[in-house]
């Protein structure tokens, strides 16, 4: 609180002082201003007035002089001189100050003005002299005389000087006044500012004070709050608190203390602290209290207190000594907490610890405890037994060094640190006993971390000697592996309905497609695996076998099972019966393996033998050397009437009455010698009853087990033979008929030949005619064109080279010549084209119409774009016609050319092309909205060189439509048109299918 105050007063003092200074200076200036104004007011206006007076006096003197001199004034010169005197007095006043006419005048101080005044005075003096002179020399002082002139000059000079003085004084006064005004203004302004400043400072000061007060009250409030809080803390603290004086008497206790011990506040304060303790604790206090006072603090001091109700409470005290400002003892502050329970717990813990240690020690189990450095801290009797070491020779030694082989120590070191801090875990390793025996131990390890001291932490491990177990396990695993690799699946079924599967080897997966786990976990019924048709049989077999009490095992007949993906497999099953002590069957155990392949094979064999037996063909097998029958099928036996027994003694020769042994041997020789692998021949067989039948024999050799067999397939061809004979007859008849028709045909052919010859001749003639035509047209074009070129060329040269020599008419003539040439050229070209049409051969092919139309329009695009011609094409892109490609193109080109030509004068020229197909024809319409024509000329327009318009109206040679008609005829088509004058035309093309 003191520091802010100082600043506060310092600041204020500075400000206060500066305000005072300002005020003083302001007042001072005001006084000065007031003073100077007085002087100004006093001084200057009178001075100006005086000058005025001087001026007036002199002017008056001048006037009077003149009047006196001229006689106008009846005064003496003294009157004039009076004025001069007055002027002089006034001048003196100006220069030296004084009283004139009872008025106080102050002298002019300004040196410059004084000078001017003195100059003026001099002039006045000279003027006075002159006045006297003029008066004295009256006659000579008349107007116009020299002295009068001089007098005027001097008077003028006087006026000038006096005016100067006057003006200067006025100016001066003005200046002073202005200065005064300025100063006045400045001062006023400053005064106002100062006033404002004071007001502002005043407000600021008040505000500052107010803030300070506010802060003060705030702080006060905080202090009050804190006090309140502390008081509450004190009151509500859960820990009992006491304060003692230097002699150990209680100064104060808090409510918690009172509540814990049961006394009231009154009963405790002022009493000695040891009154609330047991005798022993009181004694203890006597020694420990001085210590406490000396050190100033005490921690964990355990005392036994007596509660009000007589029970004891073991408490632990923490306390501090507090000193006053001088540093001497003021009071103690102590808190205690109830440690009764704690103590009990500790004691129980100790007992438990001792108990567990005993257990460990005496247990038969292999128990060791290792510290952080794997030194042995615990080593029980069980450990002694298994390892052969005694406790006292091993405690404190390094476990790793004693029990582990050198190779695994690095590995063990690596996992050692990880073992700490883990929850109980297990692992296995090998250790060496005192006698060097290697044992496999399975450890269960936990850590003991209760001690604060890290070095006292232990890992306790309980070990089990599994050396033997391991070996047994290994053997078991090996057996398991062998079984699982084999196709044999081992089952163990419970003797319940359906035979739920209790165990099955893993290779059941290969057999059934189902995992062994699924079988065991879901208590699969074995019957669900068995093929439905076999379930009954299998169940009966089990039931039968189980009846016999002496039977230990039985074999099933092969039955089927169904796999996961519905495959059927045949299995072979040997089952063992497991009985309990009472002879009741509890389980069945068995092995099963897949015999599907074998079954298939046997089935196939069966099938083949059936085929052999039941074939409707006769099949014989006989030995290659002895020729005796070894096997004959039923069909053969039936047909022949012999039994197998009888046939075994026979050979094929016995069946063939007409065949001798040598001949037969000859037949089969190629087979024997491997020249061929099959012989087919026809023969006659005799039955037992001596009847015969035609037989076709297919004979093959079969090598079998190093023996050679003949296989004969024999078909009874009696019927066939009959049929063949019948056919032969038919053939002979038919051949006869054919021969007759042949003759007839030959005649026709002769006719044809002669006709062809004729045709050939005609063609030849045609060809020669065509050739003639060709040369004709060729010559025409070539020979006619050459002179045309000449005419056109020279007429053009004439026009160009001799332009100057030709008048307009001549030029016109020449141009006519040229246009005539052009026309003739066109006619020749058209004629050529027309004749070509006639000579060309037309080939029919499938043509797509749309592309042709598009091409032609592309060709004519220039013409089309000249007008805004609209063209609609109603033709699908795959519309096909069978026609001559060139001819069709020519036709369409001409029609479109015409359509464009005859519509180009219209505003909205429009052409429509449509294609239609019906069962007999293809139709194409080309419609325009052009000039049209009168239908009475319909036939004429298709004639060569026929036109309906003048060359000026529409150009053209008149050959277009003629060519179109010719082309259509040559394609077996038709063309006709419909039109109305000025309403356009529609041309129809029709081609027969």
């Amino acid at each position, binding site marked *: 609180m003191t520091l802010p105050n100082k600043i506060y007063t310092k600041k204020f003092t500075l400000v206060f002082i500066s305000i005072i200074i300002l005020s003083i200076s302001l007042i001072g200036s005001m006084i000065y201003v007031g003073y100077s104004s007085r002087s100004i007011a006093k001084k200057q206006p009178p001075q100006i007035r005086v000058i005025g007076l001087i001026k007036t006096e002199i002017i008056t003197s001048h006037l009077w002089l003149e009047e006196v001199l001229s006689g106008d004034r009846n005064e003496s010169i003294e009157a004039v001189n009076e004025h001069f005197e007055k002027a002089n007095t006034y001048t003196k006043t100006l220069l030296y100050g004084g009283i004139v006419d009872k008025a106080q005048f102050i002298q002019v101080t300004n040196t410059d003005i004084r000078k001017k005044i003195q100059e003026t005075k001099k002039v006045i003096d000279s003027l006075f002299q002159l006045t006297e002179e003029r008066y004295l020399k009256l006659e000579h002082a008349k107007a116009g005389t020299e002295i009068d002139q001089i007098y005027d000059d001097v008077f003028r000079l006087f006026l000038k000087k006096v005016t100067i003085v006057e003006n200067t004084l006025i100016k001066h006064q003005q200046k002073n006044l202005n200065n005064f005004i300025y100063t006045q203004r400045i001062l006023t302004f400053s005064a106002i500012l100062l006033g404002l400043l004071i007001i502002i400072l005043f407000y600021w000061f008040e505000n500052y004070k107010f803030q300070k007060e506010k802060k003060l009250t705030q702080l006060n409030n905080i202090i009050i709050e804190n006090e309140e809080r502390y008081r509450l803390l004190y009151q509500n603290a859960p820990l009992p608190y006491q304060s003692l004086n230097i002699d150990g008497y209680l100064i104060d206790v808090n409510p918690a203390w009172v509540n814990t011990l049961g006394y009231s506040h009154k009963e405790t304060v002022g009493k000695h602290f040891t009154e609330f303790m047991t005798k022993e604790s009181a004694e203890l206090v006597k020694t420990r209290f001085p210590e406490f006072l000396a050190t100033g603090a005490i921690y964990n001091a355990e005392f036994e207190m007596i509660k009000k109700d007589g029970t004891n409470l073991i408490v632990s005290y923490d306390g501090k000594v507090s000193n006053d400002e001088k540093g001497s003892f003021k009071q103690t502050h102590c808190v205690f907490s109830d440690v009764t329970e704690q103590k009990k717990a500790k004691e129980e813990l100790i007992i438990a610890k001792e108990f567990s240690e005993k257990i460990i020690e005496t247990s038969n189990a292999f128990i060791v405890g290792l510290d952080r450095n794997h030194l042995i801290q615990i080593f029980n009797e069980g450990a002694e037994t298994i390892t052969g070491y005694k406790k006292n020779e091993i405690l404190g030694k390094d476990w790793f060094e004693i029990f582990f082989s050198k190779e695994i120590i690095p590995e063990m070191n690596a996992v050692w640190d990880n073992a700490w801090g883990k929850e109980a875990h297990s692992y296995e390793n090998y250790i060496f006993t005192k006698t060097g025996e290697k044992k496999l131990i399975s450890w269960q390890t936990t850590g003991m971390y209760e001690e604060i001291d890290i070095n006292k932490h232990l890992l306790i491990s309980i070990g089990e000697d599994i050396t033997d177990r391991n070996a047994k396990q290994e053997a078991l695993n090996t057996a398991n592996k062998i079984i699982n690799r084999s196709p044999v699946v081992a089952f163990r079924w419970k003797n319940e309905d359906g035979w739920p599967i209790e165990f099955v080897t893993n290779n059941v997966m290969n057999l059934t497609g189902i995992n062994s786990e699924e079988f065991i976990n879901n208590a699969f019924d074995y019957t669900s695996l068995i093929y439905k048709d076999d379930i009954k049989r299998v169940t009966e077999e089990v039931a039968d076998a189980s009846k016999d009490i002496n039977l230990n095992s039985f074999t099933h007949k092969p039955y089927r099972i169904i796999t996961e993906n519905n495959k059927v497999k045949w299995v072979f099953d040997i089952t063992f019966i497991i009985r309990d002590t009472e002879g009741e069957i509890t389980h069945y155990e068995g092995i099963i393996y897949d015999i599907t392949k074998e079954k298939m094979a046997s089935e196939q064999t069966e099938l083949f033998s059936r085929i052999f037996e039941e074939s409707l063909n006769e099949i014989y097998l006989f030995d290659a050397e002895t020729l005796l029958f070894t096997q004959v099928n039923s069909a053969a036996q039936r047909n022949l009437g012999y039994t197998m027994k009888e046939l075994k003694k026979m050979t094929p020769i016995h069946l063939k009455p007409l065949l001798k042994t040598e001949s037969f041997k000859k037949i089969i020789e190629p087979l024997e010698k491997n020249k061929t692998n099959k012989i087919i021949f026809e023969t006659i067989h005799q039955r037992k009853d001596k009847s015969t039948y035609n037989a076709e024999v297919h004979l093959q050799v079969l090598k079998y087990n190093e023996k050679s067999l003949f296989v004969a397939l024999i078909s009874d061809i009696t019927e066939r033979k009959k049929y063949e004979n019948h056919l032969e007859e038919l053939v002979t008849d038919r051949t006869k008929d054919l021969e007759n028709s042949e003759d007839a045909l030959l005649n026709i052919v002769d006719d044809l030949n002669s006709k062809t010859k004729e045709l050939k001749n005609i063609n030849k003639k045609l060809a020669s005619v065509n050739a003639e035509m*060709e040369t004709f047209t060729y010559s025409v074009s070539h020979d006619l*064109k*050459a*002179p045309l070129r000449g005419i056109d060329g020279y007429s*053009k040269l004439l026009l160009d080279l001799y332009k100057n020599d030709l008048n307009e008419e001549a030029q016109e003539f020449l141009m006519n010549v040229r246009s005539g040439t052009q026309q003739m050229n066109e006619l020749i070209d058209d004629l050529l084209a027309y004749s070509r049409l006639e000579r060309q051969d037309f080939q029919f092919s499938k043509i797509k119409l749309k592309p042709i139309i598009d091409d032609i329009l592309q060709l004519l695009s220039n013409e089309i774009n000249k007008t805004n011609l609209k063209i609609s094409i109603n033709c699908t892109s795959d519309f096909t016609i069978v026609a001559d490609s060139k001819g069709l193109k020519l036709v369409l080109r001409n029609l479109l050319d015409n359509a464009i030509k005859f519509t180009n004068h219209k505003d909205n020229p429009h052409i429509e092309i449509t294609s239609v197909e019906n069962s007999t024809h293809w139709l194409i319409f080309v419609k325009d909205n052009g000039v049209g024509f009168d239908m009475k000329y319909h036939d004429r327009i298709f004639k060569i060189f026929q036109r309906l318009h003048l060359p000026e109206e529409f150009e053209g040679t008149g050959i277009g439509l003629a060519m179109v008609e010719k082309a259509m005829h040559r394609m077996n088509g038709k063309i006709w048109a419909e039109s109305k004058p000025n309403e356009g035309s529609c041309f129809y093309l029709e081609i027969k299918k």
Partner: protein
Amino acid sequence: MNALENNPIFLVEDNPVDIDLTLRAFEMSNLTNPIKVARDGEEALSFIQKWDNGEPIPVVILLDLKMPKVDGLEVLKTIKSHKKYSQIPIVILTSSSENSDIDKAYKLGANSYIVKPVNFDNFLKVASQIELYWAVLNKSPN
């Protein structure tokens, strides 16, 4: 290449009007090459001898088809099968636009086939194009 400007254009044409007009046409299109003319097929073939004797070989031969004595196609065949002169470009310049003629000409090895227009303005254009193409633009064989 510079020598080409002096190599002649060889015109084989029987019609005097055509010859005159063609010469004028070339003249009007500012042709710099000299022009040699043969009046018929026989005369045309006699030029072969002249070339053998050292006369400059034409940069192009303009050949008409229908001519007396030896036909245009004959000349074409002969030159195109000649050891030395088969490579000279031959342009058929004729009034016939018959496909058969065109076929025959190309089969015999004609390099180009142009139909003589009747209209003289067009003919002028054709002439200048022939000249521009064959004597200036085209690179003749050595």
